């Protein structure tokens, strides 16, 4: 079976800026794929080239074995796109907008209404598009991208600027559409989002893919220390060091900031058993590395555009 997306050596330059610098990636059918990166990393341009909005300077792209550029009308009904800025006519209402998009794809009114219901905009059907809040506009935009039942959905920072409730509701929606068998590609700079939603992620910076893999695999490969912390005052830091040395827990760093006692270690098991023996488990918290740590390690900490 052909992959949903197969891109090879894609490059795009704008003047002096090499926006995309040799991106190759494969997305399998049914996969939930995330493209991560700081601002200006080339995520959006990459997505636009994959969608067929832009022509790459170099490289080849195939969606379901077909080239998206030049505009391929055989492919268009099979893909759904959502842009960063909501592309609506301000003077049309929510309902008119979804019906307009439905008509482009020869989809009926009932399906359009169902889509509106699904993104929870039925109550706002009569509101003009320019009066929608950021989250509502985002949901309408996604409804328009999904109205024709596409096999492959591209979402460019769908949760940017949303409040936590709207973000979680949108996650549910995205998980559902992926569970229905649709391939979903999204860009984001929220790492928790990528970690929760995506089967695989690619971390991008300066137009290049730095690393690709399942979020959990990337985190594990980082081999970062696990931080175990309990309430301060249950056991002192020097005592803890001694106890850990006795059981041979390897290299550890113990720190007490007066609020909590934190042990950073590569082998959390002996640390936990020592704490349990001491009856010092109150306020226990175990924090492993997250995708964020992977991200920061790969892309550095300096400010971006």
């Amino acid at each position: 079976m052909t992959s949903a997306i197969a891109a090879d050596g894609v490059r795009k330059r704008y003047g002096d800026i090499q926006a995309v610098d040799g991106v190759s990636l494969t997305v399998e059918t049914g996969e939930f794929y995330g493209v991560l990166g700081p601002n200006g990393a080339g995520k959006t341009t990459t997505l636009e080239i994959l969608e067929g909005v832009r022509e790459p300077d170099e490289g080849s792209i195939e969606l379901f074995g077909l080239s998206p550029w030049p505009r391929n009308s055989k492919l268009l009904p099979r893909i759904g796109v959502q842009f960063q800025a909501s592309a609506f006519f301000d003077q049309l209402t929510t309902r008119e907008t979804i019906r307009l998009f439905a008509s482009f794809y020869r989809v009926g009114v009932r399906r359009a209404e169902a889509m509106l219901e699904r993104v929870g905009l039925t109550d706002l059907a009569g509101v003009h598009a320019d009066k929608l809040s950021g989250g509502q506009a985002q949901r309408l935009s996604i409804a328009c991208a999904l109205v024709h039942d596409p096999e492959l959905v591209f979402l460019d920072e769908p949760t940017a600027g949303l409040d936590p409730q709207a973000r979680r509701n949108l996650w549910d929606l995205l998980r559902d559409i992926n569970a229905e068998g649709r391939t979903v590609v999204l860009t984001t700079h929220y790492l928790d989002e990528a970690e929760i939603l995506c089967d695989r992620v690619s971390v991008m910076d300066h137009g290049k893919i730095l690393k690709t893999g399942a979020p959990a695999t990337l985190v594990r490969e980082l081999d970062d220390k696990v931080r175990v912390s309990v309430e301060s005052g249950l056991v002192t830091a020097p005592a803890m060091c001694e106890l850990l040395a006795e059981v041979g827990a390897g290299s550890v760093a113990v720190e007490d900031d007066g609020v909590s006692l934190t042990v950073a270690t590569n082998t959390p098991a002996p640390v936990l058993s020592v704490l349990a023996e001491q009856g010092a488990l109150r306020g226990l918290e175990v924090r492993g590395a997250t995708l964020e740590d992977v991200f920061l390690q790969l892309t550095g900490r300096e400010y971006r555009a």
Partner: protein
Amino acid sequence: MSIEHTDQSTATAGASPQEDESPRPGTAPQSGKPGPGKTESGEAGSGKAESGKTGPGKEGPGRAETKAGSEKGGKGSDRRIGAERLSAFRELSRAMILISVRDKATVFFLVVFPVMFLLLFGTLFKDGATAHAKVAQVGAVQLLDSVHGADRAQLDKVLSITRTRDEAEALRKVRKGDLDALIEQGKGNTLVLRFSGSDQVKSASVKGIFNSLLQQANLAATGKPATYTLKSSRIEDQSLKPIQFLTPGLLGWAIATGAVFSSSLTLVTMRRKRVLRRLRMAPISAGSVVASRIGVTMIIALVQTVLFISVASTPYFGLELTGNWWLIVPLVICATIAFMSIGLLTGSLAKTEEAANGFSQLIVLPMSFLSGSFFSLDDAPGWLKAVSQAMPLRYLVTGSESVLTRGGGILDVLPTMGGMLLFAAVLATISWRFFSWDDA
């Protein structure tokens, strides 16, 4: 509304649980996810498994079914595509109309503003081109006082005579320009007329009027019938009223402004707001987008036409239409296409609405002034006339004047319409070089 596709019924049919066994392996959720690393993704994995469980019952099979349905479509699909395209076109046109109608500024500038102009100019020039001279009569003037009845009414049409006793004051007013002349009885049977030379047309007509009054009085005094009489009449009695040329002129200006600005601004706004790009990503032809836009602009232009002719035809303004006035419809349609091509050019060149506005103004303003909409170009220098002849508005104005008020026929406007379409084709070709679907 759009024609319903076969999907609709299946979307709900899919909800029945016995159809859970989907025949399509790739898209069916229970076939498991082919993506690598799926089981490793910790929290994400469990979240997905959950939604995976609820997914199939609700939507999954429905979707699979849909696909099978549309693939089976086969032969019938051609016909359906035709019908559906019509519907996409219709929805687009409907959207374009709603956009225009709901934008209050657009409605004002396309409809209210031009009609206000017509009302204003129509009222200002209602009494026609006759120079109405104001004359002060100082003291008793036998010649004037003896004019009564119908003759007096005739005289009042061309002169407004005020009586005064204060000669110095009247003289001062003439000097200032508040009055055109003053008349008083001189010694014996002489009449003294003192006039201001500032308006040569008026002073000449005042002199002429009093001269003829005098001659008539002299003739009457001899008691003989007149040997010669002059009968004068104007040839184009239709254009006697200014409304007959104001209507085509202002109508042309209104249509030109409306079509150029609306197409230019719509194009830029749609590009800037990414609507153009979004439309490009939908399986509809560029032709249907363009056609819907042209259609709507034509409708607006025809609404303007109907409104203008209706207002001008009211008894107050008294526009009289000549035989082939309906030819205004094809004429306006061709002109709209020509003006839209100007909008296409400015909208393709401009990146922002402000720039589009500026570029359009740069063309529309000179075009309006040089079209004969507001004043005649008969005395203009040759090069200005040449510029005016290169712009479509002049042809719309003369063409509509011809069919609306001068009894012109199809042969009078056919070359005009052809020229307008040619103009549009040339400009569209040039625009295409600068056109882009997207901001760079």
